[in-house]
């Protein structure tokens, strides 16, 4: 590997020849990595490449099967996350790890609350420190609000605040931006730069390459758990990086096929849900991909939930192919040909303890039956069929999905719903936490589906994705539809303007 002698100081934290297996899966094979103070280091790789496993090893969550962790050049063994934390390593894990019943303030300071006399907790100080952190991130979250019910994005923010509160020497972030919109990402990067300039070492994981290029100095690439390269980013192009990750050249990221929209497949009229969104009306036609953009918390997910029938709507109508859907009944929505790929894959998309086969099978309970009994053969082939179609990376179709990497889990969710061959497909953050390669596949899939006459409603906080894929862009702001912009005049500016409620 190119040893960066130019970076001057010795690495704060280094991995040497790390290997880690889970049962039959070899997540990491002889991986090495060096983190230097005052630099932001990117960790790139496809879904399942081993990024999260690597950082979990750094954080003392996993014990490596082989290899060693060096802190300031001296080998250390972390017996648990506590050890790593005490060594000054702060970690933002890929999946938010909050205590739903505790207040945001407690979530952030759990285990190290400011103390008063007799080691009693100083609640006031805790609250104030939290407010300070929130201001630093430029967000407004009530420190006393319990974490339960926070949107994915809000949860991610709390995680970031938690990591910052350590003033750690090493800050590790596993896809912190996956759930965030541009402006929030900008804020985050501001803070990260400040930390870097104070001499902290930062390890940054993201599937949004532009982010990597924006903030990182060097990048380490993994492929199938093996170390590929560690090198400076300047002089590299996105394509170079992608080639490193995927090992081949990448097809176009937004392969949008032009189609002439057919008749209306999904029609939403004056949909309203007290206190969350109001008077939302729109149509989606066959073959059309409609983007639904907006700031986090705009209510997009809530709209999707209400349309699909997860939440009861207080007012309004939803029609699929002219069939009016009963209020609050997902089963009838499915029967009508509606499918929803939800935002939170762990809680809503997948039953984490069930196998890949069974998870995909769940949406087919009505179809893979013979004489009222399950037709196991049909169930399995249906699941295998789609798992392969979407190139899910797994050891056995009978493995539980919680052994899959984030991105592969997302693919299983997609498989599960595409298997129902829907007429109307609503996808909420379909590519959140998915690597470029897969992203391109998902996009290809979506536009393929559209081409085949499926009506697609795509909720996404990833603006380029919306602009790249959507025929029309709907924009929500504080629970209202504020704009409908045709593909031709949809730009970052127009959309953001409508999303922040400034113009439009």
């Amino acid at each position, binding site marked *: 590997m190119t040893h960066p002698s130019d970076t001057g100081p010795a690495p704060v934290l280094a991995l040497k020849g790390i290997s880690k297996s889970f049962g039959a899966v070899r997540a990491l094979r002889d991986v090495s990595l060096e983190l230097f103070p005052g630099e932001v280091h990117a960790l790139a790789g496809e879904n399942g490449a081993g990024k999260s496993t690597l950082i979990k090893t750094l*954080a003392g*969550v996993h014990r490596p099967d082989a290899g060693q962790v060096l802190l300031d050049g001296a080998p250390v063994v972390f017996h*648990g*996350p*506590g*050890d790593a*934390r*005490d060594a000054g390593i702060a*970690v933002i*894990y890929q999946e938010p*790890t*909050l*205590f*739903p*019943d*505790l*207040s945001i303030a*407690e979530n952030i300071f*759990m*285990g190290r*609350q400011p*103390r008063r006399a007799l*080691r*009693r*907790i100083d609640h006031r100080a805790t609250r104030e420190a939290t*407010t300070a952190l*929130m*201001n630093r991130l*430029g*967000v*407004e*979250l*009530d*420190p*006393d*609000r*319990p974490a*339960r*019910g*926070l*949107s994915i*994005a*809000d949860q991610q*923010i709390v995680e970031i605040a938690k990591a910052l509160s350590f003033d750690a020497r090493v800050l590790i972030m596993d896809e912190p931006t996956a759930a965030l*919109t541009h*402006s*929030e990402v900008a*804020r985050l990067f501001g803070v990260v730069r400040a930390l870097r300039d104070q001499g902290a070492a930062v390890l940054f994981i993201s599937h949004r390459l532009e982010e990597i290029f924006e903030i990182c100095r060097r990048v380490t690439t993994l492929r199938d758990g093996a170390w590929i390269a560690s090198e400076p980013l300047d002089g590299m192009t996105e394509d170079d990086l992608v080639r490193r990750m995927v090992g081949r050249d990448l097809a176009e990221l937004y392969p949008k096929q032009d189609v002439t929209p057919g008749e209306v497949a999904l029609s939403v009229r004056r949909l309203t849900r007290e*206190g*969350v969104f109001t008077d939302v009306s729109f149509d989606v036609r066959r073959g059309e991909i409609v983007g639904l953009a907006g*700031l*986090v*918390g*705009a*209510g997009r997910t809530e709209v999707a939930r209400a349309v699909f029938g997860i939440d009861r709507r207080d007012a309004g109508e939803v029609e699929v192919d002219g069939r009016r859907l009963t209020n609050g009944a997902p089963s009838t929505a499915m029967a009508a040909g509606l499918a929803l790929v939800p935002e939170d894959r762990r809680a809503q998309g997948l039953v984490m303890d069930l196998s890949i086969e069974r998870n995909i099978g769940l949406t087919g309970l009505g179809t893979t039956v013979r004489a009222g009994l399950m037709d196991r053969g049909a169930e399995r082939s249906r699941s295998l069929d789609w798992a392969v179609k979407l190139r899910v990376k797994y050891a056995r179709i009978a493995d539980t999905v919680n052994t899959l990497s984030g991105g592969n889990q997302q693919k299983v969710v997609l498989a599960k719903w595409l298997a129902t061959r829907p007429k109307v497909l609503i996808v909420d953050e379909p590519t959140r936490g998915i690597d470029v390669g897969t992203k391109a596949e998902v996009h290809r899939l979506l536009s393929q589906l559209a081409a085949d006459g499926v009506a697609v409603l795509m909720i996404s906080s990833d603006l380029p994705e919306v602009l790249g894929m959507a025929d029309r862009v709907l924009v929500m702001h*504080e*629970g209202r539809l504020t704009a409908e912009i045709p593909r031709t005049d949809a730009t970052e500016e127009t959309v953001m303007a409508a999303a*922040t409620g400034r113009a439009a």
Partner: protein
Amino acid sequence: MTVTAPGEAPATEVPEAGATRLVDRVFKMRELAILAVFLVMIAVTQAGNSAFLSEQGVKDLLLNATILVLVATGQALVVITRNVDLSVGSTLGISAFAAGIYLQGGGNPVVAVALAVLLGIGFGLLNGLLVSLGQVPALVVTLGTLYIIRGVDSIWVGSRQITAADLPGGFVDFGSGGLSAVPYLAMIALAVLVATAYYLRHFGGGRELYALGSNPEAARLAGIPVRKRILAAYTFCGALAGLAGALYLARFGNVDSGTGSGYELTVVSAVVVGGVVFTGGSGSVYGAALGALLLTSINSVLPALGVSSVWVLAINGVLLVLAIAVDRIVALRVASALKKRNARHA
């Protein structure tokens, strides 16, 4: 959550203050709901029978609640960590007998109580070790130890029994005595209760119990010594069950191999009525204690009102369901309140 446009100063203070008050109010209400039910019940009874709140009457109310309050407090701690201890009844029984046997041999009451507590701690540790180290479902394990301890108890006790005659007079008098209407036993229970509540609210260890009940995986990642905490919770629960055993002996002056059997359901009911949820992470020991007070009082109220004992059980059950329902409706109100605030923020 919103993104404050650059330049605009984040107006955090206003909503925070408001929110704080709201949340606090609402969460206090969870206990308030039970307290209300309790007070109404007492009032009605007093109206129907003026003798009810006589000095003797009040004393009896408190005495009856004491033992259940203690055990429920311990149980609450365990339930908060998303576990449960079904073996408390057996533990209470066996430690009561141990203390009794010791006193029968002319032992010193203080030592006897200590003995009971130690025995409780022992069994608490056993449960704690099985659950935290063995990492096996608490329900099964403690149901197992419920049987084991009960069995060992009845083999050891056989047909022997401790009667008031075997106990030093001072011990028995202590069991029924008190300062005017406030029994000594109740004071002990209250002290334990307040101390526990304070610890849970104001000490790191206490908060960590809530944390790991709320999300065990996250607790591990936050570097909380999960096993240690769970072990501590069970030990404490066992200790209180042991203490309760000693007090039972003082109170009823009578212990045999059946003492405390079937108690687990009562305790769990008290905790549930008290608004401590079984999915862990929420609820308070005050709630549990109120639940205990409510349950035991029902058993005094109905006879005092002359309700035929045939009805007691049914009314008990219905009240139990009602109490939970009320609590639930309050909880729902909390949720909707939060959602509304959410929307305001958005």
